[in-house]
């Protein structure tokens, strides 16, 4: 369509109608596409040829007006209400009379289970790549928490199950309960807020408990904000959401995953009876061990004392043996052994005679033998 401009000198000016027609014709050349968003402000009247609604981006709140021929909308028999996520197939158009931009939808589909699963899978891969689910991030639960935080719905069952399990196992447990939405569009934000509030109050561990529900019911527990809040929680988190076979992403980000609220309750407290028994065993061991150490020390002392007592006698015996040895050597060296071999010692005037010249004939000498001796007179000398 030709858009006529009025010429004012060298200025080209368009009428509003012409401008809108021009933009509309340019927009109409854009392709038909799928757009995803949440339905809000749905307006339908049997007097109107079209139904109108706004598509809202759940991430950033961006809005898009949508119109759809009423006949087509009704024929789809979709139970579309505010808050429902849809895929709209259409092209951008300008409502020329008002200069309003909107999407002219030709078809509409509810965001199906498959789409949810695909979106969940994408988010899961993204968070896994960031290391949010890594095993080394998991923290051990405190053995004896001073206070336990519990995030739960006002749905009585999950809350009661956790509290019963906790107090049965550990009667003196202190629990701070934060009741919150666990279903619907407000749940994710509310759970995040409850987590933060509990941590501000001061708890050593948090249990997030929610009973079973449909896939959609549990979706808030796979919400990115909630999953990140659990991973970032300053104290360990136990997740008990849905049944065993459901694995909402919060289960992967939590430090421990419990299959049921009761299991979660048992995980966060020690068994008081067992704890006391263990403590008593330690104390008994302490006494026994100290006694044993003392006993050993005493035995060591006794042994030392005994050796001390033996020491003088031992010393005496050693001295005696040494003396005997010396005496033996002394005997070997004495002249007596020489006499025994047949030699004799001759003395004159008490001096040992070593040469013939030392005595004179007729002089008396004393002869000593190995056995006894005798006196003699010198016959002659040489």
């Amino acid at each position, binding site marked *: 369509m030709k858009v006529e401009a009025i010429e004012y000198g060298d200025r080209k000016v368009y009428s509003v109608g012409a401008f809108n027609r021009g933009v509309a014709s340019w927009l109409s050349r854009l392709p038909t596409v799928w757009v995803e968003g949440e339905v809000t402000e749905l307006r339908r009247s049997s007097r109107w040829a079209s139904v109108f609604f706004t598509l809202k981006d759940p991430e950033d709140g961006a809005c898009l007006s949508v119109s759809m021929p009423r006949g087509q909308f009704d024929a789809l028999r979709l139970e579309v209400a505010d808050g429902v996520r849809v895929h709209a197939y259409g092209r951008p158009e300008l409502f020329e009379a008002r200069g309003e931009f909107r999407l002219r939808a030709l078809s509409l589909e509810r965001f199906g289970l498959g789409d949810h699963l695909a979106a969940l899978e994408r988010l899961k891969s993204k968070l896994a790549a960031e290391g949010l689910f890594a095993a080394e991030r998991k923290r051990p639960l*405190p*053995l*004896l928490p*001073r206070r336990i935080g519990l995030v739960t719905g006002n749905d009585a069952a999950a809350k009661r199950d956790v*509290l019963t399990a906790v*107090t049965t196992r550990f*009667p*003196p*447990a*202190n*629990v*701070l*309960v*934060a*009741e919150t939405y666990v279903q619907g569009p407000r749940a994710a934000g509310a759970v995040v807020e*409850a987590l933060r*509030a*509990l941590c501000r*109050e001061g708890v050593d561990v948090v249990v997030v408990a929610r009973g079973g529900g449909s896939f959609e019911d549990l979706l808030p527990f796979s919400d990115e904000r909630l999953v990140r809040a659990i991973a970032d929680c300053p104290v360990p988190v136990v997740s008990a959401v849905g049944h065993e076979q459901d694995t909402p992403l919060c289960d992967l980000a939590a430090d421990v995953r419990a299959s049921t609220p009761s299991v979660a309750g048992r995980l966060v407290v020690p068994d*008081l009876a067992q*704890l*006391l028994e*263990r*403590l008593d065993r*330690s*104390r008994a*061991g*302490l006494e*026994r*061990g*100290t006694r*044993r*150490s*003392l*006993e*050993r*020390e005493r035995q060591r002392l006794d042994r030392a004392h005994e050796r001390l007592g033996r020491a003088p006698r031992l010393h005496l015996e050693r001295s005696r043996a040494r003396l005997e040895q010396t005496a033996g050597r002394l005997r070997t060296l004495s002249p007596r052994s020489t006499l025994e071999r047949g030699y004799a010692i001759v003395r004159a005037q008490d001096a040992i005679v070593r040469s013939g010249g030392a005595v004179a004939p007729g002089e008396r000498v004393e002869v000593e033998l190995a056995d006894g001796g005798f006196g003699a007179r010198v016959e002659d000398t040489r």
Partner: protein
Amino acid sequence: MTFEEAQKELEGIVQRLETGEAPLDEALKLWERGEELYRFCKERLDAAEGTIEELASRAEAAKP
């Protein structure tokens, strides 16, 4: 010190004592420390009074 730290240290002391290898001075020191840890653990258990509170009512009570 947390309860589990105390419990772990206590059990370590018992183990050391039960070998009977600790010299007298050390054994007596270990025993004293062990008793101290035992009292700490016991007190922690006795101090827990067993309360279940609602966060909402706490917030309510905090309001002027």
